[in-house]
């Protein structure tokens, strides 16, 4: 029994020696292979950038690329589909703000109907995806403006003129986005950098501070911007910044500032001595346009033109409310020129018809700022200052009324003039940028005007603000919901 064991061990030993001998060669070979492959391994997994992208260090290197970064905001504002990722532009504020302000309703039955219904009913829920799109899209553009502002600071190879122009546009756009965010939601986080680590847990900034930033940005923008950098009025200029500044002062009851800003635009004269005819207002290159956006979608003029304007004799999808139709005074030409009726048999089937072009060649641009608003801003600012300014305020109002074919306003005193202005703004700006929704809120008239119109008594104090989107609170526990939605 012992002998075989010894033999066994010996053979094991031999085997080991054999393996050692064999593996010696093997190890040498393997080491050689690995040494060669190691150096190439690193090279192998270092891939070049894909041909579809630019990296951040290649953007602010020349005028053209840097300008393209700015243009992306205007393009996406006109290209994004409202609802899925739509922003303030592209019908979202006109339609949803209009529904909130009881200007229009959605008549079709589909999966989005309950989402629209929430706006009409003032029964918004924090998960409402359309509310979420307002928030997320605003901040999407704010990120870009912040990236441009910081990118320009270290830009090389750019001309000073372009640098100033782009810095002005970026500051204007940042203010533009914050303007709508602060109006729709109240306090919003004031994000001014692109550093996500710094911004991800930022709580809501008091609205007053947001307004301060808006006016500061707009003043900077006014200084940086001069004329339109290109033909047509497709990019903001000095006066565009002024127009938003005038509006911002008005919203903050800074009457004198609002008056002087609006006054300087009107007296500048570049937007015509008076107001153009009603059917010219929304055409491309309308003389009263201060800033407009060029449509970029295929075979579509403005999204409003294709969504609101109803062809055929069916019930329109976006139907103007009877309450709005009744607001037009007899003989108001805006009712005949800017409101459409799809079926004479159903006089309630009315739809917004400011923009009329759907498919086909581009004849209409998307108006963001127009001179009429400046007349009404100056009028309201003057009315609030009262005294000797009441008459010029009334004159401004009558400029707008006379263009609509109406007689001079019958308002006699400050309160009646202010109410007349509210009414004038309603019929002038219906289905346009949610003006009435924001007007009623800034004048604290929402509850008085809208609560009685809400079916099912769903209006609550605080309903004039939209809820902070649920997803945002989920992603940032520091955000606190608005009172009406708690």
């Amino acid at each position, binding site marked *: 029994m012992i002998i075989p064991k010894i033999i066994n061990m010996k053979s094991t030993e031999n085997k080991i020696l054999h393996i050692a001998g064999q593996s010696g060669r093997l190890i040498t070979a393997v080491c050689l292979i690995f040494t060669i492959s190691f150096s190439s391994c690193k090279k192998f*997994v270092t*891939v070049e950038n894909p041909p579809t*992208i630019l990296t951040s260090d290649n953007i602010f290197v020349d005028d053209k690329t840097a300008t393209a970064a700015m243009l992306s905001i205007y*393009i996406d504002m006109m*290209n994004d589909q409202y609802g899925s990722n739509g922003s303030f532009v592209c019908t979202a504020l006109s339609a949803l703000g209009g529904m909130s302000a009881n200007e229009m309703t959605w008549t079709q039955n589909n999966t989005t109907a309950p989402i629209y219904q929430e706006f009409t009913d003032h029964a918004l*829920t924090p998960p409402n995806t359309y509310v979420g799109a307002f928030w997320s899209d605003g901040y999407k553009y704010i990120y870009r403006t912040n990236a441009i502002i910081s990118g320009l600071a270290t830009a090389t190879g750019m001309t000073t003129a372009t640098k100033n122009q782009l810095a002005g546009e970026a500051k204007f756009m940042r203010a533009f986005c914050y303007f709508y965010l602060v109006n729709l939601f109240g306090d919003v986080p004031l994000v001014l950098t692109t550093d996500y680590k710094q*911004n991800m847990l930022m709580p809501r900034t008091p609205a007053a501070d947001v307004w301060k930033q808006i006016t500061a940005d707009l003043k900077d923008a006014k200084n940086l911007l001069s004329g339109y950098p*290109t033909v047509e009025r497709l990019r903001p200029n000095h006066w565009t910044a002024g127009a938003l500044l005038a509006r911002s002062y008005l919203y903050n009851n800074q009457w004198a500032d609002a008056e002087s800003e609006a006054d300087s635009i009107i007296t500048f004269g570049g937007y015509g001595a008076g107001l153009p005819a009603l059917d010219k207002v929304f055409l491309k290159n309308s003389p009263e346009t201060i800033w407009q956006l060029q449509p970029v*979608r295929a075979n579509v003029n403005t999204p409003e033109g294709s969504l609101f304007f109803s062809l055929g004799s069916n019930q329109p999808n976006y139907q103007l409310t009877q309450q709005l139709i009744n607001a037009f005074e007899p003989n108001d030409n805006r009712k005949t020129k800017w409101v459409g009726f799809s079926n004479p048999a159903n006089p309630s089937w009315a739809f917004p018809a400011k923009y009329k072009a759907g498919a086909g060649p581009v004849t209409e641009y998307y108006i963001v700022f127009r001179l009429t608003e400046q007349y009404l801003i100056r009028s309201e600012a003057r009315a609030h200052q009262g005294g000797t300014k009441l008459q010029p305020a009334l004159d401004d109002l009558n400029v707008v009324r006379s263009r609509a074919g109406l007689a001079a306003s019958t308002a006699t005193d400050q309160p009646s003039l202010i109410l007349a202005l509210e009414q004038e703004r309603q019929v002038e700006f219906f289905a346009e940028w949610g003006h009435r929704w924001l007007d009623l809120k800034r004048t604290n008239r929402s509850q008085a005007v809208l609560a009685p119109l809400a079916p099912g008594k769903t209006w609550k104090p605080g309903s004039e603000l939209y809820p902070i989107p649920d997803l945002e609170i*989920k992603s940032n526990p520091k955000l606190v919901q608005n009172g009406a939605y708690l």
Partner: protein
Amino acid sequence: MPALKTRDYRRHLCLTKTLLIMKITAMLMVAFTFAASAHSYSQITISAKNKSLSSVFKSIKHQSGYDFVYAVESLNKAGNISVELHNVGLQDALEACLKDKELTYTVIGKTVVIKSNEKITIPIREPSLPSIIDVQGRIVSESGEPVAGASVKIKGTSLGASADKNGLFQLKGINEDATLIVSGTNIETIEVRVNQSSLLKDGFLTIRTKLKVNSLDETVVIAYGTTTRRLATGAISKVSGEEIRKNPVDNPFLAIGDKIPGLQVTQTSGVAGAPVSIFIRGKSSLGAGSEPLYVIDGVPFAHTVGSVTFSNGISAQTLGGLSNATNGSSPFVNLNPSDIESIEVLKDADATAIYGSRGANGVILITTRKAKTGKTSLDLNFYTGWGRPTCLPKMMNTQQYTAMRREAFKNDSIVPTTGNASDLMVWDTTRNTDWEKIMLGKTARIYDGQVRISGGNQQTQVSLATGYHRETPVYYGNMHDDRVNLHSNFSHKTTDNRFQIAFNASYSSDKNNLSTIDLMQLLTSIPNAPNPLDSAGNLVWSDKGINFTNPLAYTKKQYIGLSENMLSSLNMSYNIAKGLRVKLDGGFNIVRLDQTATNPASSQGSSSSSFISSADFYRQAQKNWILEPQTDYTTKLGKGQLQVLVGGSFQQQVSAGDKISATGYTNDALLLTPGPAATKTVTSTYAKYRYDAIFGRLSYNWDTKYLINISGRRDGSSRFGPGKQFGNFGAIGAGWIFSNENFMRFFPALSYGKLRASWGVTGNDRIGNYQYISQWLSTSSALPYQGSSGIYPYNLDNPDFAWERNKKWEAGLELAFFKDRIDLTADYYLNRTDNQLVGLSLPSQVGFGYVNANRDAILQNSGWEFLVNTTNIRKKDFSWRSSFNISIPQNKLIAYPDLENTSYASVWSIGQPVTIQKYIQYQGVDPTTGIYKLNGINLSKDKIEPRNLARTYYGGFQNSFAYKGFSLSFSFYFVKQMGKASFLYQAPGSRTNQPVTVLDRWQKPGDITDIQRFATTGPAVTQYSYWANYSDAIITNTSFIRLKNMSLAYQLDRSIARKIKAENVRVYCQGQNLLTFTHYKVGDPEIMAFSTMPPLKMITVGVQVIF
């Protein structure tokens, strides 16, 4: 038969026992068999002068390839010969050699048996002494293939022999009526009487054995090699292609979910080609992908074209840029189930660590069928089937619907008018359309035909298979999903067996024209809507001035989805020295996708002037190559066997695609190409992914008792920034087959027992490419802005993120009892993922929805898995086998630093599963108001009820019976889980049809019910929205038991089959999803969504003929 002469026999008797042993040992067949030669059919030329017969035979063997079997003694006795032969056949050569010799020959197959010609003198034997004979023979399997290494023992003695690799053996001088015990690791032990005439033919014994059914010794494919279940140190499960083919499914993964413990397969839709979600041992990553790595014939499968997350939170890998009825199609529909040899699922660190940074989520190895040595066979298989959805919600008819609407208005105190209730006040309230019957009323059909040719000799094997598969949905319209596939396999080895080469290629093309949406979404169309078609057959778009969204609009839209998949792999190996082999594996894979979706003006409405025809085109190609040089060395070391493997891996995956949105066609006939469109928007995608690695593995098996396996890998991925690309991974696994220990002799019932354990680290790089670079992309509008396009920041870049690490522990116990008739596997695993690669959800205020970053979070997945296989009855004509498996997974968030200050604060809690979701507490319907009562609606504060939506346990139970030619098998699949009830997001009462279950609503104060009052607007609708989206009322028991598969087959008697010259004829009937037992109310518990097609209940019949 060379019987010994009487005097020899007597001499034998005189010998002592020791001598006898020595003699038999010496004479134990020197099996003069040599490796078969390549010159099988060549002519024989011999020039021999006074040469021994054995040397002449050797020469013949070399030239002809025939083996020779003879007794050395009889050849020696015959003496030397002299022959001169020139180009003669085998028979002539043998005749010449054996001329004048006392020897004759018989050719059996490829073996020449030489025996003595001496007259058999019947010995006058004494009654107590049987005659002594020599036995030559071959051990073969049932199918006639040689069984190598089997041992043959003479019963009652310790004598015996073992068969060589061709199954040949020889025994000398044994009793004529001796009983031989034939046993082996992979065959069932049998006893045969030597003089059983049926076995013995011309002195040559052919012993047919049964391959073992317990699968312990079946080959199991692992990373870079194979093993057996007995010798494996890792947790590996296998499903054979045959099992898969019992299921009439287009996606092979739908056939394995009930068979593999730890594998969670979820069907996302019942529509053909739908993606399937697959997890191995739970979701191991918080943010990065949790799907396993798929490897087909050694080539990682490039399948990540898209990923879709479904409403119930599961995600699936899909192909697709455009949406269709199934949210993209599964890349695996291009994998023909009939081309699959086996699917192995590697679960623990030991099995997966050699895949390094990609093994964290487990690995699925798919092996395609290979050609086999033997007679050329032609296999034809055809089946056809009929299917209907397992369950469809029953919707209200017009009478019920209009009653609901009127009640809702009454509840709201609103008077219905033509403005707010045109469906009641304008439209006809008596007409009734059953949309379910119109849109989903058809019977789904399935057709499948496969042809396979396979054959070859020892050196070269070739197979070629082709097939066609068609499925049609239950949808209205002419839709189908077709697949054509081709699979070929070629392998060759040189006569000296040193060089081997194998090549696999398969091509498959799948085309479907299913609708762009799942028609289940249209079931809510109201029943008194106008007839969808007018008398001329055109779509109707309005009735009495009220618009009507025609559900049949989809019939005008066209979707064509074409996906192609080409897979090829080349394996070469060369034996440098004994046990030392170099290998080169290479593979190339192309996945191509070509989708077209049209949106003609005619499908959008009646006033065509305001609608524009448009079409979307999506084309993508993914090319993937891999090269893996390897060296392995196998040697005996001590009482054990040592295997060493070292290798490298280089891989590249390039994916490029374009999406073209085309609008403004002048005519709808031109919609299928982008060219004629007035404007086109092109979005391009491009990604290159590179990956390289060096790896090694050392495994040692000591006396089939102690097993150890160590593997390591260092690899790099281009998905990480400079300095973060490389990572080290490795594992150690050990096994102890204690049943082979001596002391286990005292437990004869236990035939096999193994304990195994493993520990290791694997990684995960499942994030997108280029995430570490700040990317700016071009805008994709149709028209430029003042002649220029824009450029915008696309991502938040983070150059610092790196591998996610997954540490895996595993312990397993494998037992088999009663000669392996019962075998049991129990596994416990504990996986901890740290350095979590999280697509960190960010609030929109930062500008983006997420950023990739590593977090110190630790996620733990642990669980138990059990698998029991039993052979309940094993009789000659009847057998019954069962298999049961169950998996009990558990998931826990162990650590997440600073969780309360992250976006997951309201989602996760330390110590809780990450599959938890929090809900508002539902408190029933208020009996006085009829409105849902919720414990608050402040989503940030009141979502406090945690509900775990993961599976509590799941598994399968299979039974198979065989009686003569009949075989019957059925398989149950069970899942215990909570999930979402399928319901509608619109409150009952709005202008949307509802399932009849809502009729149990609250009607008057005092009613106690679970469904709130009907409402069209106001607080009730708001409350419904919170209830449906955020309350725990929607979380329900979605457990189910499903008769997943049933298969009945009849194999024609061989004698009948022979009449049509067939080897085998089989007719079969298969059923899928036949029965479902569940508490789930509306819809299907596996799908858990109202508007997704439930799985189909399918019955097929087929026939298979093998020639």
